[in-house]
């Protein structure tokens, strides 16, 4: 106790004294390392920085007259991109919830179609009141999420395997239910037009803002709020970070995981409803690549596949990047395969950055 008053005055702990000698020995090395550390640190604190930069730069490039002849940067085209990414965007939000807990959901696409098919079968083919059809669709979506969640938390199976299994199961059941038949647009209009509500739009100049686009933004805003402002959100991040530590901190990790899977299912239900408006009809064979596209948006959006890190807003930017590349390259007259090519590299880049952040911070 004798030295307590002199020690703080010197401000000495091991690190600060080490710091000082470091600086003397290799000032330059230190500064360079400082810059790299600083960048890494910045990315760690702002996981959406990279996707936002990629989005802004790609929008700027595609806006150049010599690239797209001025066809890209129009209100009409920008609003069209928003429409095109709206369904994958909402699915990516559902996917993000699972990935934040260090899981992955391969069943979101199939569950979305399953849910949409149930809405259509009941509301259109069977003439059940629309709101009951909608509720049934949401029950299917939330129930599917619950099923995934129970298998992950109770039977302790890896999410990858569980959702690979349920992907097949959901697809087969929905095809059995519909006999692989689509539900036609005119029939929906006649029997249950409310199912197509998210295809409606308001025009502002040449821009067409569909309700589906507004819905996507609302979904991200609400999820952002819950993930960042509630104890539940804090727990979701902690579980993805280190489930055991979260449990030791007194969090009911399995119960929280179940709520995450159910919330994700509810968001899939929203995507299902919105998809009817976007496509017009309900096809059991639509959105075949939706699972991978949702994962792509999440990864490009800077959410770590290892869980616990990233902003829920990232996947919104991720989905927009995909949409901007697709539109821009098409308007530039290039083969759409170049978009696929570019997205492939973006995924690899995003994961490489994530690894880098993990390595230095570990």
């Amino acid at each position, binding site marked *: *106790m004798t*030295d*307590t008053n002199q*020690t*703080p005055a010197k*401000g*000495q*702990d*091991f*690190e*600060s004294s080490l710091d000082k000698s470091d600086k003397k020995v290799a000032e330059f090395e230190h500064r360079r390392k400082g810059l790299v550390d600083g960048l890494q*640190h910045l990315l*760690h*604190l702002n996981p959406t920085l990279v996707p936002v930069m990629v989005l802004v730069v790609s929008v700027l490039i595609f806006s150049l007259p010599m690239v797209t002849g001025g066809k890209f940067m129009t209100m009409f085209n920008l609003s069209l991109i928003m429409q095109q990414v709206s369904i994958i965007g909402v699915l990516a939000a559902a996917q993000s919830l699972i990935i934040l807990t260090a899981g992955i959901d391969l069943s979101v696409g199939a569950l979305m179609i399953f849910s949409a098919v149930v809405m259509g079968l009941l509301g259109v083919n069977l003439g059940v009141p629309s709101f009951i059809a909608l509720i049934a669709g949401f029950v299917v979506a939330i129930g599917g999420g619950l099923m995934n969640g129970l298998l992950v938390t109770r039977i302790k199976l890896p999410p990858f395997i569980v959702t690979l299994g349920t992907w097949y199961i959901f697809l087969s059941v929905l095809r059995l239910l519909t006999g692989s038949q689509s539900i036609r647009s005119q029939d929906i209009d006649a029997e249950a037009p409310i199912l197509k509500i998210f295809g409606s739009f308001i025009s502002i100049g040449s821009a067409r803002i569909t309700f589906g686009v507004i819905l996507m933004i609302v979904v991200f805003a609400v999820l952002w709020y819950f993930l960042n*402002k*509630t*104890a539940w*959100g*804090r*727990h979701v*991040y*902690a579980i993805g*970070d*280190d489930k*055991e*530590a*979260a*449990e*030791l*901190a*007194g*969090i*009911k990790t399995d119960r929280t995981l179940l709520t995450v899977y159910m919330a994700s299912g509810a968001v899939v239900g929203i995507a299902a409803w919105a998809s009817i408006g976007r496509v017009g009809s309900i096809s059991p064979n639509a959105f075949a690549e939706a699972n991978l596209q949702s994962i792509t948006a999440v990864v490009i959006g800077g959410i770590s596949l290892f869980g*616990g*890190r990233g902003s829920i807003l990232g996947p919104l930017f991720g989905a927009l990047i995909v949409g901007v590349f697709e539109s821009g390259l098409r308007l530039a007259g290039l083969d759409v395969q170049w978009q696929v090519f570019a997205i492939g590299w973006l995924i690899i880049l995003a994961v490489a950055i994530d690894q880098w952040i993990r390595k230095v*911070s*570990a």
Partner: protein
Amino acid sequence: MTTPLVQMKNISIAFGGVHAVEDVSLDLYPGEVVGLLGHNGAGKSTLIKILSGAYKADAGEIWINGKKVDIQSPRDARANSIETIYQTLALADNLDAASNLFLGRELTTPFGFVDDSRQEAETRKIMARLNPNFKKLKEPVSALSGGQRQSVAIARAVYFKARILIMDEPTAALGVHETKMVADLITELKKQGLGIFLISHDTREMMELCDRVSVMKNGQIVGTERVEDVTEDDILSMIILGKNPKAAA
């Protein structure tokens, strides 16, 4: 005689074939510091993790304040006013210090949202007491040094005013100055009447801080002695030989 704060009676646990803890009994009184010593793998952490609710014992009983309790989870331990600093710290790396401090017990606004500003203010207060050099309140704890992370884990255990405190190698990553502050903290908490289980490999430090020390080897207690009745060498030979020289004499 006062009622013991904690009585662990004939505790056993095995992992597969490994008997990590075998028939161990240990008690702790208010205002007392009991030290656990022993080689790596002796079973110290496993024993206290049974008390903290991280593991469920295969056999044995835990009594708190003279009443038998059933501790199934870390939440049950907290409900019995037991706080733990784990050897692994058990922090969520991507959350900042305040979020870790209040993890699972967030301070909320009347609307049910996390009250970040109050959490931060409280964290600032307790960190000022534990580690005045600690400035990185907004950083994810993965960006902190080992010593700073340890301070966060200590703050979390101390903040909630437990009556029973478990400290598993709390100073392993700390500098000289912070180690001293933790020692002072232990002395202060002891005066307030807390019971503390302290695990450390530093025999000298243990002789200074503890009232009694228990030595473990291969999951069993070699012996429990009051520090004034033994020398540091006695303790060392208990650790190394796995025999209590006093009991043999």
